[in-house]
């Protein structure tokens, strides 16, 4: 049974942030923090790269709109041109409305699927769940995980550092 990492439990957000900053200063890189709600500081501390998902959303939007407009154009100009109320075949104003809705839809899907993909969800079985202490059963808890794969990881040392940084409990997590 290989070791995935060390899971440290903290009482509150401040403690977690302090600990994360501490471990970071100690040169740990392969670490992750878990919180019941988003915490901006952690992003800075863990130097989480800026996500490129907005571009995916933009692309989804453009694709949706373009596809649908193309479909409409094809249907009225090429496939079945027909005189409807004496209006021009290519009556763009109404077509734009539909294309707009399609754009929103495409963008939304791109965003939603994008975030799931980027986060690797669904991931029902994950090592962190092996940690006895890792649970929201008692409401908002704050966890810091140092992966065993981190070059600076030393069994006893790391645990000590975490405890010193105020971890209520440090636990080994199996992979």
């Amino acid at each position, binding site marked *: 049974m290989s070791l995935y990492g060390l899971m440290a439990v903290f009482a509150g957000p401040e403690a977690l942030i302090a600990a994360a900053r501490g471990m970071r200063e100690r040169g740990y890189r392969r670490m992750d923090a878990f919180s019941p709600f988003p915490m901006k500081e952690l992003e800075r501390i863990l130097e989480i790269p800026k996500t490129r998902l907005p571009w995916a959303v933009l692309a989804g939007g453009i694709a949706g709109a373009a596809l649908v407009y193309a479909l409409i154009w094809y249907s009225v100009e090429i496939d079945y041109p*027909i*005189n*409807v*109320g*004496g*209006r*021009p075949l290519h009556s763009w104003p109404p077509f734009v409305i539909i294309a707009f809705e399609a754009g929103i839809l495409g963008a939304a899907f791109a965003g939603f699927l994008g975030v799931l993909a980027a986060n690797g969800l669904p991931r029902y079985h994950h090592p962190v769940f092996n940690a006895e202490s890792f649970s929201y059963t008692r409401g908002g808890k704050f966890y810091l995980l140092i992966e065993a794969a981190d070059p600076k990881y030393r069994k006893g040392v790391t645990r000590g550092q975490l405890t010193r940084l105020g971890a209520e409990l440090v636990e080994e997590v199996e992979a």
Partner: protein
Amino acid sequence: MSAIADKPGSAIDIEALRKRLAHGGEIWRSLDEVAGTAEFRRFVEAEFPAIAERLPAKPNRRTLLKLMGASLSLAGLAACSRAEKIVPYVRQPEILVPGKPVYYATTLSSDGFGIGAIVESHEGRPTKIEGNPDHPASRGAADAVMQAAVLTLFDPDRSRAPLKDGQPASYGDFLKAMAGLVSRWTVSQGQGGALLVEATTSPTLAAQLDALRTRYPRLKLYRHDSLATPAAGEASRALFGSALTPVYRFDRADTIVSLDADFLGEGPGRLAYARDFAARRRVRDPSDRMSRLYAVESTPTITGAAADHRVAIKPSDVEAVAAGLNAALTGQTGASGSPVDPAWMAALVDDLSAAGRNALAIAGTQQSAFIQAVALAANAKLGAFGNTVELIEPPDALHVDGDLEAMCQAIGHEAIDTVVALGANPLHTAPAGLDVREAFSSLKLLVHHGLYRDETAFLAHWHLSAAHELESWSDIRAHDGSTSLVQPLIKPLYDGKTVHELLAALGGEFEADPFLLIRQHWAQLDDDAWRKALRDGVMADSAAKPVSVTVPPDLAGLKPAAMAGNGIDVRFVADPWLRDGRYANASWLQELPRPLTKIVWGNAALVSPATAERLKVGNGEVVNVASNGAAIDAPAWIMPGHPDETITLSFGFGRKLGSVAALSQGYDAFQLRRGSEWFATGAAIAPRKNSVRVITTQHHQAMEGRAIVRHASLNAFRQNPDFVRMNAPPAPTESLYPDWPYDQEAWAMAIDLSACIGCMACVSACQAENNIAPVGPEECERGHEMHWLRVDRYYAGPVDAPDTFFQPVPCMHCEKAPCEVVCPVNATVHTHDGLNAQVYNRCIGTRYCSQNCPYKVRRFNFLDHQSFDKEEAGPEQGVHNPNVSVRSRGVMEKCTYCVQRISAKRIQAQIENRDIADGEVVTACQQACPTQAITFGDRNKKDAKVVREKSAPQNYALLEELNTRPRTTYLGKISNPNGKLAKPGEATDG
């Protein structure tokens, strides 16, 4: 749901069923046992599925209906076969090709007189009536009642077998009974026997009656015609010693005065008269001239609506007006006491005198002998005889021993113990105070011959089901005396017999062939002449010769009958469609709005606004009308332009016999009528507390100051020919959208509002042609009626003497159609020739198109109005036009410019590799129109009639300010009032 459309008849397998069902009666009998009294339910299910949905379900109803429906439709089809020896019309006779209609000429009867018709027949099924252009009484036009002939033919309520004391019997049994009667009469020379006939003009029938009377010298002959108008005969007999009847030539008349005559809506000559009248009033150019019509009316009629000057007065005052007119014309001074404004009378007399021999005075046929005499005298004075009016021997002349009353008296004295009633239904149409039931009950033998098992049939010892006129061989004469033949389109559906067969049987000729009976009467015609007569639908120059007369100066002593003017006057009229009630079972007619009231499925008692005000009654509130002993309850209806202190009651309703008739609401005016009177005085009206449902299809009568029906006087038109542009919103000249090219045909329609008399013929023709479903009273009340074409009726001016305007409104086929853009599924789109096509099978029923139609000409199938189960549908499906889809529930429908007719002509033209000629495509409404108000054709053909019409200065498009570019346009209404008489509301539209 693929059954959105169905082509009745396409699958009909005639020959097989014909053999299997030699006797429709047999099946009916077997069903009687199964069905009991489920007839009404079955019928409603078949004819009005929508209503049936609402009927409480009976456990075994469905199966029962299926069973009945099945065998009924079989019974119906049993005779869907070409009767032998019939000759097609002008098109060369061709053996029946499935899918190709064949056209035959025949004659339909209207109050006993003949109106020529061309009948379209599909695979031996007569489906549509058109007028016969060669027939003097039709001139190609056909009215609502004629259209319904095909419907009554397939009416499942028709009597299906001879009945002995109400029990189905065979024709053989009937003949046995007749044989008994014949032997009895042969011995007694017809002692105690009597025949009761209706109004008839059939030469063969007359000859047969004479023969019978020579055979049985003591046999009596009575005539009962509840709508008889004997006054003309009386007058001429008084004046000239012999009964004569006038025939008018409106195409020669410059000034016409109508003394309570509804010549456009009533009488056997109405269609011809309407055509001539309109022809004389066609104005397309300021230099054109038009005739002028003065109308004195005792109840609002479409003739009054068409008049240039109209006065409404109590019936009891009409004679005074006539007297005044007579005095004025004969130069007597002090024409005192005339109820109309002297200035009016003076203007009238001036016009008449100015017109001279081109003047025409018409007396209402229902009016008194005195008024008839005045009209005759006036015409004589003005020299109109031989020009605008001719007198002929009445075609319906028949020497009889008396009327119904005389007959009942004879029965009372036991002078008569046996009566054979030919078609008449006296138990319904007898006047009040004459107990026909009691009289007939005391008879030894009562034989009834009729289409329906009506009141009289129920009382009769023997009832013989009659053959429908489309099943019969006969002959008949028109209003001008011309004789034409009646030929069968189809073998009798229910083994009905013609009146000629019955009379032959009474003459001891039991196996008479209905064809030979007629043929032999016309033995003098050789086969070619006979064929020609059949093909043309009228016998060459058979019109009656005019009789020349001289009018005695003092009107032969005829005086105004001093009518007591006190109290309320009652004006009786016959319902324009149901007549005396004989057509009460035709759903098309029940649901066809009455021209002026727009009332359907019932009748009301019409009163003037002032009288209603005085009586404190509103529309639908029941009033009790009491006149000489009798009294009826009737819903009041406020009628603008109705004479005050007068109430108009119409015959034809109040019948509960027949399942369609039973659906309608209405009172029976016969219960108030004395003798054969058309007027009663001294009636009393007492408002009741309750009110009943009166269904009308138009709820708002004013134009709200909108330029909808644009109209002007002839003088105004001459001053500015494009009056239709005056004080009307300007029409946009350009559109946001590019113009679509219509380089092939561009179908278009023009409707001349000056010509339209609002007779509703177009609407019924449209219904017959396009399989438009009648929906029944409940649905009409909810505003679910389906007519594709409606005739709007607007009033303008003072409410007691308004101008009346009619406007037929079909689909406008807008080039920038608002309905099309909003349909989400392309169910309504434009075609290359500019039709606004409606694709029923694509329609999902969003109804957005109707929301967006400014003319509201679209109709929606809110419920299933037609049965798609051929088994269940019953015989009435036989009337369907196989070239038009039958629409299912949930789809929108509308006027298609009769696209099936366009397609047929286009295919024909393309097969012959030519263009469609102008006038080749004729829409149903156009074809039926008596006044040719509707023109249809290809707008791209420079010389097309429709182009000429549309180039008239008074041509305008309805709501053209909306820039929908309608293909249907209107010619503004032009009237010709006398400048000396300022007409209220002239050139405005209140």
